[in-house]
């Protein structure tokens, strides 16, 4: 009898508890979902010098200007700021949220380049997809005939292709890493000693310093380097600064090239601050919503 009363008292004490639950607490128990793809693994289509896993959203156009400046060793010239420069002008367009195309042309090497990038897999916040994977295919064409080189007379010999699988993960809100297995094929090489095919792996990272500024770095390891010349892995260290629709990417690197098949395989300088080895550059990207 007594135990029954205890149970009754227990039950009675329970019901007002249920009623007294805050309406907001009750609301928090109702599930609420939206897509949970991890945003902004990197901020731009390029980490620094090479491609990132990011594509552009549908109907957006980006106009970009890349440049590098460097000094010639033992130069007696009176050049302003730097002895030499190279530049690339490019356009990137998002056909869909997962598919981006781009074209560009660079001077003074006269390389025209195009690329297709498809976002195969997107990382999700619940870690169901722990990685993002994008596939990149580039095609470049050398419009200028280089001095003293008799090869490459046929237009078919002036192409080069790069295929990359860009695999990235945003580990924390500030830190992202990317590994990119790379295959490069040239239709011709300057020296008969060189293989037309190269295998390489790219490593890239971003660390966010504030909501608008991040530090980025990249390095490319080439498994079979050129035999005709001593080459080094392309390296870049830079800062990305986002100002509304303008993305500014400042970088220090060891090469003056803008397309994958050249900077990955043909970087002949080691990274240091000596004249001739030190390349300073910036890359400005203006974002337009069409």
């Amino acid at each position, binding site marked *: *009898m007594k135990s*029954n009363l205890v*149970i*009754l008292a227990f*039950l*009675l004490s329970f*019901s007002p508890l*249920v*009623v007294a639950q*805050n*309406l*907001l607490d*009750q*609301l*928090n128990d*109702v599930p*609420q979902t*939206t*897509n*949970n793809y991890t*945003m*902004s693994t990197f901020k731009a289509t390029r980490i620094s010098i090479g491609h990132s896993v990011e594509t*552009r*959203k*549908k109907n*957006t156009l980006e106009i970009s200007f890349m440049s590098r400046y460097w000094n010639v060793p033992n130069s007696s010239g009176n050049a302003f700021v730097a002895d030499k420069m190279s530049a690339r002008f490019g356009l990137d367009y998002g056909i869909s949220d997962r598919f981006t195309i781009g074209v560009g042309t660079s001077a003074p090497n006269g390389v025209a380049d195009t690329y297709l990038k498809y976002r195969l897999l997107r990382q999700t*916040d619940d870690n169901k997809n722990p990685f993002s994977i994008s596939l990149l295919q580039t095609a470049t064409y050398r419009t200028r005939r280089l001095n003293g080189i008799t090869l490459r007379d046929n237009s078919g010999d002036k192409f080069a292709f790069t295929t990359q699988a860009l695999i990235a993960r945003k580990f924390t*809100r500030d830190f992202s890493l990317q590994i990119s297995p790379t295959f490069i094929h040239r239709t011709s090489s300057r020296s008969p000693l060189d293989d037309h095919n190269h295998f390489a792996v790219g490593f890239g990272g971003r660390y966010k310093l504030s*909501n*608008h500024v991040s530090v980025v770095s990249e390095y490319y390891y080439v498994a079979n380097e050129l035999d005709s010349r001593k080459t080094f892995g392309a390296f870049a260290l830079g800062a990305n600064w*986002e*100002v*509304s*629709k303008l993305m500014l990417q400042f970088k220090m690197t060891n090469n003056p090239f803008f397309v994958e098949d050249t900077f990955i395989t043909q970087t002949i300088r080691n990274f240091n601050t000596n004249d001739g080895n030190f390349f300073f550059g910036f890359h400005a990207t203006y*974002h337009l*919503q069409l």
Partner: protein
Amino acid sequence: MNKFLLVIFLSICTSVTVSSQTAEFIERQGQVTFFSYTSVENIQATNNQVLSLFNPNTDEVAVSILMRAFVFKKSLMHEHFNESYIESDLYPKATFNGKIVGFDLTNDESQTRIIKGDFTLKDSTKPVDVKATITKTNDGYTISGTLDIMIDDYNIKVPPLLSPNISKKIEVTFNFNYAPYEK
């Protein structure tokens, strides 16, 4: 004796279920839109997945807004909103919890009232007074209204270079259509 207990137990059960059937109204696809007007640019975004509960007996209203569900015309604005300003990875929701002052349960037409409550955004909670119109519908209620949010109140940092682009005062409008909440 046991029968007596059973009767009491059942009566408690039924009273609880009856009250939960009639007590609350829910909106799962509420609309919240915000505007930022400046001379440099206008920013507008709409969220059509806002969740809200309304209890006409206690005059209580609760709202939960998933920040990632705001849709912008420009994809870059969506990215900046989530990444740099709202930081929706850290603060995924904005919430409101309040009471309608002087709500008249017997009024079958629309009534304009102040909802006094707390609005929480980016872990900052501020008391707000929301002017809203409450209308009885066939099976529920409609509540709509506007609210001004000062971004400085909610820890939203705008770099000095971009302060001309983003208004200090954000206009928020909302429209919720409630139906009986069946749990």
